């Protein structure tokens, strides 16, 4: 990963910026159910353990690139990506083949009654950081 960051540094002109954007496994995804005009959070989804390990390696690569003075962080933030599903079965199908999210939903108390009424949504945490080339 640091190799890729070195390449990014090489192809950037002086004053250029790198944008690193990816899922944020430090927080759980939210499972939401349509309730009238709004969606209400009814459960949570964690990240697969092997993926969490990969994400930590990515974090270390960025930290190494800063330590090597290839880049300096300008800042960034977390944002949420909403994936809507017309029916619970569609959400289930999405999770069954997912490489990052665990398939088991941790239902909140509010989510337990009739959890299969639709529509549903998953809000995934993503994050980005803007880095200045040094």
């Amino acid at each position: 990963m640091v190799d890729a960051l070195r390449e990014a540094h090489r192809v950037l002109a002086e004053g250029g910026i790198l944008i690193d954007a990816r899922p944020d496994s430090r927080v759980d995804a939210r499972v939401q159910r349509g309730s009238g005009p709004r969606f209400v959070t009814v459960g949570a989804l964690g990240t697969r353990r092997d993926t969490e390990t990969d994400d930590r390696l990515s974090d270390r690569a960025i930290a190494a690139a800063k330590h090597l003075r290839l880049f300096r962080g300008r800042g960034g933030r977390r944002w949420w990506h909403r994936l809507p599903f017309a029916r619970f079965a569609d959400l289930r199908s999405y999770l069954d083949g997912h490489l990052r999210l665990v398939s088991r939903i941790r239902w909140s108390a509010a989510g337990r009654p009739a959890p299969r009424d639709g529509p549903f949504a998953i809000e995934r945490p993503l994050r980005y950081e803007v880095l200045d080339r040094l």
Partner: protein
Amino acid sequence: MSSRTEVGRLLAGFGSGMRPLAERELGTYGPASLLRGKRVLDVGCGDGRLALGAARLAASVVGVDPDADAIAGARAKARAMRARNVRFRVGAAQDLPLPSGAFDVVIFSWVL
């Protein structure tokens, strides 16, 4: 944002493995000036989702991905959109087939 009407609208716009819409993702990174008139490189561009979105603002965009099939798909999309300021190349992030100092912005979206 939390309405039932959003469901159908967003489903119609998804591609690239249900990633965010390019406009939404790029808009999150900062103001349009971040890309406007810039030379942009999208590393791990896949089917060109983000590269083609960036092309609406940037002076030029290059997308690089190791998957030749994805690059073929991205080129077909670019032709269909008549996007003349975008090029796609097969290549790896660790060994970019591009000259030094050629870009103002490099994007790693879901790459590291």
